[in-house]
């Protein structure tokens, strides 16, 4: 049985790491669904002035022609001008890197940011694209055929869970 790190602790740790790096041009965008939960948490821990952006990358996925359109896409909401911003892009788990590529493509349709840094709770390896996270809570070994996912309880408590891939 794989021992998973505690998501709540990783949040505190990421917030502490990010705090000294924030500047007047910083803004945060979370990727649905897990990344949005993590971003909501970090955004409030860090008391970032700019409202939080939330992004659903369904319209930019590279597996549309194999998988079709995701069934319940959320509406992307970026309540600030992206141009010239230092964007903190937040996701729960970094794996193949394809989600991050899609998110960067979508982000550039909103404007030209000054920079993008990637913030993830967990990195499970297995990259298929040249993507790396600037801020990473933990590295986690995930057994083959399993998926690592963030969950949020009704109380708001975040936790990492492993589930079999077919369950998705």
């Amino acid at each position, binding site marked *: 049985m794989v021992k998973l790190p505690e998501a709540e602790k990783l949040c505190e740790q990421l917030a502490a790491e990010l705090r000294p790096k924030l500047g007047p041009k910083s803004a945060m965008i979370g990727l649905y669904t897990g990344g949005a939960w993590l971003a909501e948490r970090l955004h409030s821990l860090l008391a970032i002035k700019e409202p939080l952006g939330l992004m659903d990358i*369904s*319209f930019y996925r590279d597996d549309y022609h194999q998988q*079709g*359109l995701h*069934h319940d896409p959320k*509406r*992307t909401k970026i309540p600030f001008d992206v141009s010239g911003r230092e964007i903190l892009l937040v996701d729960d788990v970094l794996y193949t890197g394809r989600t991050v590529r899609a998110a960067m*493509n979508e982000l550039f*349709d*909103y404007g030209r940011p000054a920079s993008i840094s990637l913030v993830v709770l967990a990195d499970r390896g297995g990259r298929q694209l040249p993507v790396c996270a600037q801020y990473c809570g933990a590295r986690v070994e995930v057994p083959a055929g399993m998926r690592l996912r963030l969950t949020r309880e009704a109380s708001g408590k975040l936790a990492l869970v492993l589930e079999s891939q077919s369950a998705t």
Partner: protein
Amino acid sequence: MQRNPQLNQAGELQHLLSIEGLPREILTQILDTAESFAGVTEREVKKVPLLRGKSVFNLFFEPSTRTRTTFEIAAKRLSADVINLNIAISSHTKGESLLDTVANLSAMHADIFVVRHSSSGAPFLIARHVKPHEHVINAGDGRHAHPTQGLLDLFTIRHYKKDFSRLTVAIIGDVLHSRVARSLIHGLTTLGAPEVRVIGPQTLLPAGVEALGVKVFHDMREGLRDCDVVVMLRLQSERMKGALLPSAQEYFKNYGLTLDKLSLARKDAIVMHPGPMNRGVEIDSSVADGPHSVILPQVTFGIAVRMAVMSIVAGN
């Protein structure tokens, strides 16, 4: 049981031919997806890369400017290549059959056919003959169905009223010849609107319309009472010649929507019209341009709804 021709074996939407027979989950999926696309259409870059490399053929066997244009914009915002064919003045007149026309376009590597035809059922015929990777969207067939208009009406209602479960909706005018009315009635009943009314003169209501689950009114004032949504239908001028109606003036007096009649509906009622409008025939300008009117937002929402339909069928 015969399989629904619109769905593939996994029960997903393969073609959009009619709202009738579509399960509630698929209607909701289309409306939810359209909601996300509405966000895209408000951005500076109004394009997403979903249908890059795909070809959409607009096959209009019957003229229509608005519907064709909104389908074209929707396809372009999905990054598809769009080819408009006005077949009313093309090979059709040279005697080519419908299926031969489609077979030729298929040989040009079509992915989506958007079909408008004066004969009810023409898009169904095409859907039965296309290749598995090709998709057909009905853009209006005869008096039968106009599903994307019905969906954009449903989207508009949901946008302003949030929820169908307590709504009273009145559909007013020439229901008999209206494919829009039929599509909307099916959609509203599937999504659980408790009361749908149709209002019009006997000659313009189909016999047995009650079987669709609607209440019939011939007195507009009575039918408008406490409505949340008022949908006006276009009165086609040819109807006057067919002796179905005495005159435009007479029709306006009885069934034209004026501020005075609208005051019988709820204070926050919305007024819709699929366009093109005949001002002074079915609707007064003071209503069409007034605060209750959501006629122009309907057009904008129509683009997001058509983006949703195209991207869902092309992905299945």
